[in-house]
């Protein structure tokens, strides 16, 4: 039986990827951030999952505005790296797991999550920066990936509660796959940030800390946070945090917090990272 063994929450700020790609991780601006991610990277190197389900959002790269799926699942054999306007990131293409993705589609739709099926898709920094943070710069990624893209760009994003319940349905789907696989689920984006308008640069450390605490101790409460609270308290782009609730929902009731890290800033973002092992 396939099992979800752990969840990873992490920001996916594009500047973090650029710092790695341009060899700037030792600069004073970046060094504390990369030092803070070392324990997670080590944990990942020891855990060696077979599959990562990475919940992220596309930033007007794979999806223009012709079609905006609220939830989409990547079912391809391979996902090329998008050129987001400054050239492709120098990272290997992402290997998919079409058989398991197809199984997730069937299970999720019958479980009343009408997810959009995507058979060809480029992936952007939302997916690749978390991979870089956790696996560094390998020639080939040591894991197969099922991308789950969530619309958090056009308001409204799906509610936290809907995301939390999608996570639970993903857990059920994975556990009904008859192959010994160890699966980690990523929730990416956030934490507090706003990159638009005169209010740009907003950071709310208290909100972010309470969110990290809630992931471990009281996810049911987090699932009830209304969209307006993310926008007002933690910035227009902090709504990305609903994607962490998909990850948390996939872990079951009890989790063990293995590690957390928080740092301001990466570009305009409050950066958070948490590792939760499923109970």
């Amino acid at each position: 039986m396939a099992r979800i063994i752990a969840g990873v929450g992490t920001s996916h700020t594009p500047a973090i990827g650029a710092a790695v790609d341009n060899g700037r991780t030792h600069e004073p601006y970046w060094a504390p951030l990369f030092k803070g991610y070392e324990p997670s990277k080590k944990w990942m190197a020891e855990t060696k999952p077979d599959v990562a389900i990475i919940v992220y959002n596309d930033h007007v790269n794979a999806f223009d505005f012709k079609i905006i799926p609220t939830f989409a699942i990547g079912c391809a054999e391979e996902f090329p790296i998008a050129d987001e306007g400054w050239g492709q990131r120098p990272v290997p293409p992402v290997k998919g797991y079409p058989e398991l993705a197809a199984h997730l589609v069937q299970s999720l739709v019958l479980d009343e999550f009408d997810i959009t099926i995507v058979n060809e898709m480029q992936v952007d920094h939302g997916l690749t920066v978390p991979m870089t943070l956790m696996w560094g710069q390998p020639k080939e990624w040591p894991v197969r990936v099922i991308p789950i893209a969530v619309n958090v760009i056009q308001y409204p994003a799906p509610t936290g509660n809907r995301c939390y319940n999608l996570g639970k349905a993903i857990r059920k789907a994975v556990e009904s796959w008859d192959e010994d696989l160890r699966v980690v689920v990523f929730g990416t984006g956030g934490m507090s940030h706003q990159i638009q308008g005169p209010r740009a640069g907003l950071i709310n450390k208290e909100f972010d800390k309470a969110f990290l605490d809630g992931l471990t101790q009281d996810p049911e409460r987090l699932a009830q946070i209304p969209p307006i609270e993310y926008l007002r308290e933690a910035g227009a782009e902090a709504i990305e945090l609903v994607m962490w609730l998909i990850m948390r929902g996939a872990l079951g009731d009890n989790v063990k917090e293995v590690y957390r890290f928080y740092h301001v800033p990466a570009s305009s973002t409050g950066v958070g990272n948490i590792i939760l092992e499923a109970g």
Partner: protein
Amino acid sequence: MSKKKEEYEDIPGTWVFDAQRARKGYHLNAFLYSLMKPENREEFLADERKYLMKFPMTEEQREAVIARDWNRLLELGGVSYALAKLAFTDKKSYQYMASQMVGVTEQEYVNMMLAGGRSPDGWRSKSERGE
């Protein structure tokens, strides 16, 4: 025909990219999306107005693009991630774009972030700011 005022419209200094704004910004964002291709970036920079005429956006939107009036572009339906492609076309960064929206220099913006960012205190509602 109008809708009731949404709660998020009371957040100061912010244009939430909601369904109505997305509708108005559709062709503007299609233009911005086209800047993902290097040949389009070149063509745009060679003659901005001529390139913009290919997209059925409003004249107001075209003028805001040419003026790099970032806040006006947000108001007219541009979404920040698409607007960033215009900043990249100008060889500028996200932080540069944000600094222009805030009305400070890029270095001042970077310094604000290094000092922990903007506190939400005083930025929660237009009414508390007397707007």
